[in-house]
């Protein structure tokens, strides 16, 4: 069905994105990493509907109101869903297989992303209890999150 005309010419270019200046509030992420200093997992709770978000945005996405109440949640929770990374962003096989998980921490209504440390990825399942492991000496950075481990 295709007509093989070769009339067009290909012109190559790349888009330079260096001048873009994105602004993001990320206030809840700041609260989370500051909590890591005291080895606490901090989120925000809506004073109207009671939803707990970790990381906690400055507004409730269900009630559309500003929220400020800070709450601490458990480091333990259950795996809500996961995937096993077997290829890179271009689909090429990776040397080291990793397991990305979304964990619903006890006391939180939202899911938190991280990587699971496990010897055999085939053992992972939805609903599996897992715990967030922080570095022994925390500094208030995302890198304080070492991984999740099955309990």
């Amino acid at each position, binding site marked *: *069905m*295709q007509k093989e*005309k*070769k*009339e*067009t010419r*290909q012109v190559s*270019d790349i*888009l330079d*994105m260096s001048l873009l200046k*994105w602004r*993001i509030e*990320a206030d*809840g*992420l*700041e609260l989370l*990493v500051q909590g890591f200093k005291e080895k606490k997992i901090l*989120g925000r709770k809506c004073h109207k509907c009671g939803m707990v*978000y*970790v*990381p906690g*945005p400055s507004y409730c*996405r*269900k009630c559309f109101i500003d929220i400020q109440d800070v709450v601490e949640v458990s480091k333990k929770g259950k795996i*809500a*869903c*996961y*995937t*096993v*990374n*077997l*290829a*890179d*962003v271009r*689909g090429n*096989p*990776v040397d080291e297989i*990793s397991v*990305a998980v*979304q964990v619903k921490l006890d006391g*939180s*209504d*939202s899911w*938190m*992303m*991280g*990587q699971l*440390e496990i010897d055999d990825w085939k053992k992972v*399942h*939805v*609903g599996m209890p897992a715990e967030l492991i922080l570095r022994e000496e925390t*500094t*208030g*950075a*995302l*890198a*304080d*999150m*070492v*991984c999740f481990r099955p309990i």
Partner: protein
Amino acid sequence: MRNVAIISVGYNDRFVAKRPDVNIPEMIQPAVANALKKTKMKHSDIGVVVEGNMPTFEGINYPHLWFSDHIGAAGKPVLRISTGGTTGMSVFHGGYYCVASGMFDVAMVIGWEKHDEGDAQVGLMGIVLPEAFSLFQFGPDMSGGRGGGMGLLGGGGSTGGASFQALSYLAKAKGTPEHIDKMAAQARSNAAKNPYAHLQHPNCTAADIAKTPMVSYPLRFGHTCPTSCGACVMILVAEEKVKKFADTDRVAWVKAVATASSDATTGNLIDGQINDPAEQAICEKIAAPKAYQLAGIQNPKKEIQMCEVYDGFAHQELMWPEKLHLVDNSCKAIDEGRLAIDGEMPVNPSGGVVSTNAIGASAMVRVAEASLQVMGMAEGGHQVPRRVKNALAHGWGGLFQFVTITIVGDEPVKR
């Protein structure tokens, strides 16, 4: 509100990976011509043109600047709509609103993508980069280890995001990755019966799919959509003008349109994610009931004879019919052959998005294919054997957060 009929569907040609012989306007123009050819109208009868594709995927932000003459838009209103994967159906809905409202008697809608001129993964990066880059402000682990912030998303780009949804769905439906193999095999086999489909694999089996490499468990290469080039054009006409312009007695009537949106699900790194990507309450509890109410459908399982769902990944072809109240458990249904072209609820006789994905066109192709089924004009052996009185088309977009539904039928709704 006026009743609206789809009187014509035009594709440019078969969807393929590369079209080095044409540029974007040259690729779209034949679809316009093909759609017009199947009507009794002249180009000047078109009142409004609505168009859309994925912004940045070809690196051109206002592509309609360059093809407005190729689609004959001079002197007419042109609207551009873009909502991610749902773009094609949002464009269709835009055209529908124009005619149903009484503002125009005829609308032409165009959904297209020319993936060979850009980079889909880079286009997708342009969507999530601000969010991902924000993590750099919070000291992520840059050592390549398992530390927080980096390497969180699944492998294979968008496949990684979809794989979270796939596993969550399988856990709820008590299905296995082998069910996804079966679904993908059916899709690619159906595509072989559709002369316009991109990845055609006659008699494809689950074993064929299971041989393809795993990208991001449970999704394999064989479960993922290709990047296709192509355009879809549809012509929508007000009820009172149908006899004047339609070249067929069997037009497809738009019985309902519905759409709903939610928060980004999966990939929301900086605010806690509150929605399970496999829950899709926006479809199950909002958009689908609204569509059935508008269409006057009480029992979708019986009153709808086929569906075309947006399945960028094969597990979605299992998941969406459940969320649309068309199938109770798709894993069981595929095991029993009930989703086949000659089954009780044929899902994607066209081969679906998993076989053909020119993204800006894909959700519109779902409506086009549902309409062709109602009109009895699906070519090449993918026409559902029993009479299709009502058909449902579905699209999803964004980070699993937009859903669009269109129901078409062989007679208009009495309003």
